């Protein structure tokens, strides 16, 4: 018998949960205080947005909302490392990466507030809208990457999926084709340990999600998803490789969902006791704060000022969202086809009439 293939999975963490460097050899980013502060701001902004959206839902001003508490380093890390001309193909818990790549918070709120205009991005013009059917977005990302390859462009694509989503066929099909065609795409797994109520023991018999890449013939990377330095560093490397024609990468980011699955969920039904207490000690924002403080680069005063600034910024987005009147009923019809079939035109008029004389009845 001979061994014909072997693999190992490397895990990277640069900053531990106490905000301490785990090695002497740190990437440049770990010393780049300005960038770190920007990332800190972005993470805190997404948390502020998520918290606000949650509160809005509780008062009937928002639909079902999937917060990403505790997972801010993942989306902010890989989203901020994208170039403007790269393309993001997000999943439903992807607001952190989306906002980093130019989607506005108002658009995020509109989308989850039940308004299609939330997907008509004003700045992130080529980015895909949120995909709710799990894992379907992975194939779109591969397709966008294929187009870039065909056009000979030096751009790349990033996409995100939950660890549970990697059980779907579409995920395997996407990484497989990305391997064969050497596509410029990077798959990020937000391993927040839970797929609604389903833990990893029920989701996979693998030790890691990263190793799924091995069977697709693409590079497998695993990082501490609560360490933004590790996430961003891994993302930058993978994007560079992709843009240079080196093919796809799968990056598993290990984190923990510190909130319910969505506002419609009650995690206390399945989450083991104590998990949250431990989780809040390891979360990414606190960690980066400790790291910055240890270098004398952050203090309570700056923290308070930033919080006030972000509260204002988020409130502005909320106000804009709340002040956006619902779309007209004809919007149900007007974007279905380049030209609405004559038959459906009748229904369109009927819907308008119904909306107009609603008050009369």
């Amino acid at each position, binding site marked *: 018998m001979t061994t014909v293939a072997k693999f190992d999975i490397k895990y990277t963490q640069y900053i531990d949960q106490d905000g301490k460097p785990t090695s002497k050899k740190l990437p440049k980013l770990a010393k780049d205080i300005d960038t770190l502060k920007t990332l800190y701001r972005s993470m805190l902004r997404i948390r502020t947005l998520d918290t606000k959206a949650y509160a809005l839902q509780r008062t009937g001003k928002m639909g079902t909302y999937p917060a990403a508490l505790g997972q801010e380093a993942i989306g902010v890390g890989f989203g901020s490392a994208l170039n403007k001309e790269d393309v993001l193909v997000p999943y439903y818990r992807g607001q952190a990466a989306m906002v980093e790549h130019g989607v506005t918070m108002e658009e995020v709120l509109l989308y989850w507030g039940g308004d299609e205009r939330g997907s008509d991005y004003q700045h992130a013009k080529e980015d895909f809208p949120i995909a709710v059917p799990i894992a379907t977005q992975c194939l779109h990302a591969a397709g966008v990457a294929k187009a870039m390859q065909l056009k000979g462009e030096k751009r790349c694509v990033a996409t995100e999926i939950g660890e549970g989503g990697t059980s779907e066929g579409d995920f395997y099909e996407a990484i497989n084709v990305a391997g064969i065609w050497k596509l410029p795409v990077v798959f990020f797994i937000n391993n927040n340990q839970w797929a609604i109520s*389903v833990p990893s023991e029920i989701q996979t018999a693998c030790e890691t999600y990263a190793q799924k890449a091995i069977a697709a013939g693409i590079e497998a990377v695993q990082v501490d998803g609560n360490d933004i330095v590790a996430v961003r560093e891994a993302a930058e490397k993978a994007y560079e490789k992709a843009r240079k024609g080196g093919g796809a990468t799968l990056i598993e980011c290990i984190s923990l969902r510190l909130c319910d699955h969505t506002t419609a969920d009650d995690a206390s039904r399945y989450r083991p006791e104590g998990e949250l207490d431990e989780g809040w000690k390891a979360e990414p924002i606190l960690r980066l704060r400790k790291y910055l403080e240890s270098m004398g680069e952050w203090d309570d005063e700056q923290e308070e000022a930033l919080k006030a600034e972000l509260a204002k910024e988020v409130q502005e987005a909320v106000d804009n969202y709340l002040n956006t009147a619902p779309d007209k009923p004809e919007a*149900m019809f007007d974007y*279905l086809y380049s030209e609405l079939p004559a038959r459906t035109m009748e229904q369109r008029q009927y819907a308008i009439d119904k909306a107009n004389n609603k008050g009369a009845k």
Partner: protein
Amino acid sequence: MSAITLIEAVNKAMAYEMENDQTVVALGEDVGANGGVFRATDGLQKKFGPDRVIDTPLAESMIAGVSIGMAAQGIKPVAEIQFMGFIFPAFDQIVCHMARMRHRTRGRITLPMVIRAPYGGGIHAPEHHSESTEALFAHIPGLKVVIPSNPSRAYGLMLAAIRDPDPVIFLEPKRVYRIVKHEVEDNGEEYPIGCCFVDREGTDITLISWGAMLHETHQAAEKLAAEGISAEVIDVATVSPLDIDTILESVEKTGRAMIVQEAPKAGSLGSEIAAEIAEKAVMSLLAPIGRVSGYDTVMPYYRLEKQYMPTVDRVLEEARKIMEYK
């Protein structure tokens, strides 16, 4: 006897059958510890253990395909697809295998299995959580498609679905999961699949509906009665195979027919029912057949949801039009 909701009825019927038939298993995403996102399987894992109430990985094609394999071996899977909008990864298995295994093997392999899914709009949910795509399944020969409209029918039809020797798609109108309660005796008594139910007798017009829309239809019938119009209301309940005889009998009596559905109009069940009436009872008709339906559009996100959903007023308006036809 106790008053229960539609979702509790689904739960009770499953529990009853699991208790009495050891070959019945439940499986799906989040059906175990969490009891399903709507709690349809609440408490079942505690009662029957993780071998019979199985939390699956997140993969619908797997759920359907594995259920087919189990059913071929005499296990009776009751598989949950979390929302009907997420049934499409399983469509291949359902259409290409579940629907035709009996036929393909000339009866050698049969599939006594149920695929349950909450469906329909009106609960302010995100995209893909509100569509009514029952016609896609009703169109496939070899499938039975059942839609209970109230707690009693949910209980009886779920029992019948599990006991049925053939695969059943069981669609649960989630908007009415909890809005009405019925006294339902937990005695294992089933309702027949393949039967329409005459919910309300009338002589002037036949209102035909199923699922959640039956509630608007009943309200409309009540208002019509106040206007002196006697409406008969039919709950289709099994949308495939269709019990057209009950519908025809009613239409022959009333001379007027109207279909109320949440789904888009084109190529829908309403189209099929209207065509059957036109083929077989056109001479009894005193007015053209009417249809009140969702629009031929993508189901809008929730801010426009109300604009899409057929309302009691729309039902009334159409019914009056039919009544006034000369």
